[in-house]
């Protein structure tokens, strides 16, 4: 397994942003050390590596920090362009489309996610955030049809940028499904995404990284709420 010098990821096991980076490292067949951060007591290494945002994930490559998950993913894709599949397409227009949808996911799904779990003060506010998530997923259903062209993933034959960016939220979606009593990615509403989710979760690079124990995730939610670091 390539490693090209030491690789270390500072993360939190439920973070969609961390999960996507770990999946990409797996796709590229790269060995790395993983360090779980306590968001209520951030390590000196984290604060020193990401003084501006103080957030996870941080990728340390030969001791040098790279921050912001989508930037980290492009870094990995560029440094290890020779190994494993390409995470971003080669064609400039297709790259722009992939970047667009990745940004859309973090903008619309990401803000609905924080709204559904961390920022809502009551069930009404949660429902409003759920409605925003539903709308974003409806749009992404169309995007999947367009981007995949009938192939299994947003990235086509293989998992790509948009897949890992959206896929990072799946562990939380399962927890939210339990809270709201129905599926966010509902086969009746978004059949393509529902099928995509099955395929994505089953992929080697993904298994063990996307959390699949809903009870554990819900318990951890309480920890995060207590820390109050997700506002």
């Amino acid at each position, binding site marked *: 397994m390539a490693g090209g010098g030491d690789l270390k990821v500072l993360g939190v096991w439920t973070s969609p942003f961390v999960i996507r980076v770990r999946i990409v490292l797996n796709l590229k067949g790269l060995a790395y050390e993983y360090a779980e951060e306590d968001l209520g007591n951030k390590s000196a290494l984290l604060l020193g590596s990401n003084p*501006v*945002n103080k957030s996870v994930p941080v990728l340390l*490559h030969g001791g*040098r920090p*790279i*921050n*912001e998950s989508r*930037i*980290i993913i*492009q*870094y990995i894709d*560029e*440094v290890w362009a020779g190994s494993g599949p390409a995470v971003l397409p080669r064609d*400039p*227009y297709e*790259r*722009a489309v992939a*970047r*667009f949808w990745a*940004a*859309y996911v973090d903008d619309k799904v990401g803000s609905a996610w924080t709204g559904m779990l961390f920022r809502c003060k009551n069930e009404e506010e949660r429902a409003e955030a759920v409605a925003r998530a539903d709308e974003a997923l409806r*749009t992404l259903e169309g995007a999947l049809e367009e981007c995949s062209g009938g192939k299994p993933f947003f990235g086509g034959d293989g998992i790509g940028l948009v897949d890992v960016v959206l896929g990072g939220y799946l562990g939380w979606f399962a927890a939210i499904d339990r809270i709201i009593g129905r599926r966010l990615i509902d086969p009746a509403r978004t059949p393509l995404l529902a099928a995509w989710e099955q395929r994505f979760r089953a992929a080697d690079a993904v298994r063990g990284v996307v959390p699949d124990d809903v009870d554990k995730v819900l318990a951890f939610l309480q920890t995060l709420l207590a820390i109050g670091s997700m506002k």
Partner: protein
Amino acid sequence: MAGEKKGLQLLDFWVSPFGQRCRIALSEKGLPYEYLEQDLGNKSELLLRSNPVHKKIPVLLHDGRPVCESLIIVQYIDEAFPGKDGKPALLPADPYARAQARFWADYVDKKLYDCGTRLWKLKGEAQQQARKEMLEILRTLDGALGDGKFFGGEAFGFADVAIAPFTAWFLTYERHGEFSVEEECPRLVAWAKRCGERESIAKNLTPPEKVYEFICGMKKRFGIE
């Protein structure tokens, strides 16, 4: 049919710093394009068709195909027209340097414009909070620049393109926040002057007084004193 024209078209709004990033990039690369000013109060068919998801400018049309989101557009321009007429790349060759450049562009995207909007729109406690945050953002950028000529070091590049349009907004931030960017962040102001010496920037930034006038007009429309 409009929208399938050959070549480059930019759907934009005159004062938009996001649109200006694209204009600067096109100019740096020496790429001719058709500028299409958009009426944001009455959005055109072309804009709505080209950016149905966000319905926002800027949008770059390349042989009729739309690219949306300013930093995505700038990267597209850099990648689709590599080394055109010997013009250098906006993003550096080294992946670590690229990550740094993307980080600062992303930082400005996440922080600067929204904070600036709160600074001119809000009053009282909320405005004071925005002022505090704006100073922190500007000081962070000043620190990131360090003693470098540009954000990437010796060469003008992606992060500079991403941040330069906001220098036209310093005057507006100063007047609403009652501070001096030059006093607080001398390196940032020196960098802004260096950028302003480049044709791509001198031609494409809105004069600061015009930005201020525009914001005053917006405030009247929103009924803000």
